[in-house]
């Protein structure tokens, strides 16, 4: 599991497009994974996720190497990734057809 250079964030699998912040990451601070780096666009609390790359509207958000939902808004690299810009794809009874 690659840890960011300063230990502030953890990318659980190589193809994940988000990392988990292991401590609070203040806005404008930089999270570096070797050559790759992102600048936090918001204060991100510990345990929450930061986007490692831009994620288009409707694209899959990946953590643990698995899809955890899709972007419900365009997400820029460095953004806080959470309920305001990601929706689940499972257990979505709200999308079910209303039967007569």
């Amino acid at each position: 599991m690659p840890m960011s250079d300063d230990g502030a964030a953890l990318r659980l699998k190589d193809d994940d497009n988000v990392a988990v912040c292991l401590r609070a990451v203040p806005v404008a601070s930089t999270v570096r994974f070797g050559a790759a780096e992102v600048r936090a666009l918001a204060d991100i609390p510990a345990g929450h996720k930061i986007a490692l790359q831009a994620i288009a509207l409707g694209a899959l958000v990946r953590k643990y190497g698995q899809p955890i939902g899709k972007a419900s808004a365009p997400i820029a690299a460095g953004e806080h990734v959470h309920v305001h810009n990601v929706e689940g794809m499972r257990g979505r009874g709200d999308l079910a057809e209303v039967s007569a």
Partner: protein
Amino acid sequence: MTFAGYRRPNGTVGVRNHVLVIPSVMCANHVVNLIGRTCSEAVTINHPTGCAQVGTDFEQTKRTMAGFAANPNVAAVLVVGLGCETNESKALAQEIAARGQRVEVIGIQECDGTTNTIARGIEIVGELLREAKNHVRTRADVAELILGTECGGSDGFSGITANPALGYASDRLVAAGGTVILAELPELVGAEHLLAERASPAVAKQLYELIERVEARARSMHVDIRYGNPTQGNIAGGLTTIEEKSLGAAYKGGSSELREVVEYAERPRSRGLVVMDTPGQDIEQMTGMVAGGAQVVVFTTGRGTPTGSPIAPVIKVATNTPMFTRMRENMDLNAGTILDGNASIADVGNDIFDWIIESANGRKTAAEELEFRDFAINRIGPSF
């Protein structure tokens, strides 16, 4: 590898030696509590079920009570009924006896009121407590253990620290011949394919059917599961979707083959890793696993959940050091050391495994020290 447990006449091995007083119906709760006031060494429980229930909902309620009372952590049981309830107390006692458990039964109407029932109950429980003192611990193989795994009040660290560490301990117990229950089906939605890969086609099919049942429920209610699960606290802790929560939760079961899928409160027939159909709601899940025969539960928590079973040790593992420090009295182990860089997943996994064996030998957990007696039966139908 062995532990020192109580071998019961039916061959199962307990890690505690409780005398349990259980109401067959909520109308007997008060009487049960008053018996417990005098017989403080006995364990009393309350619940809001047992009457005007039908079909599979009633069957599940009765199966849960019988399984719970017959858990090998219980030496003997007193069932207290009212007399007119759906869950007829003598039939429940027969069901408990059929599972090889020592059981007595009394009814409030048959005893001509509550005062007589309490007096008779105190007499019986006194005798059961004396009998229980004759049971002694003997060596038993760890293969006799059924471990319930649970996460509650999860956060963004659950799937990184405590759950993978518990998975490591689960793998060790399975390798030693024991049984591990992975449950909370709604919290496997989005991770079921990873479990199915490790199951026979027949077991994989059963698992997919259970997951479909969860999602069908959400569809029939026209709601997004996310309104209730992940919970507000999970979301505050960084979990965004049910898939994300599930992927972290599934680590608890470890990486061994999935051998069997069982209903709520049903005793596994296989050894090894087993999935039980329980809700994610913590107390109902814990009750279902213990009713299915789990003698020990390991419960990981990020936000800080103090719950404990009336009859089984529930070992609390914190996912992060700040919460472990704040809620020290409610926690047994800290997996936050993995984040702090002081321990590996295997280190904490070994600590959890050691705690399982020590609790089986009699070491009390924080929830036991604080006398938690949380009990709730999962309902799958309305009261009529």
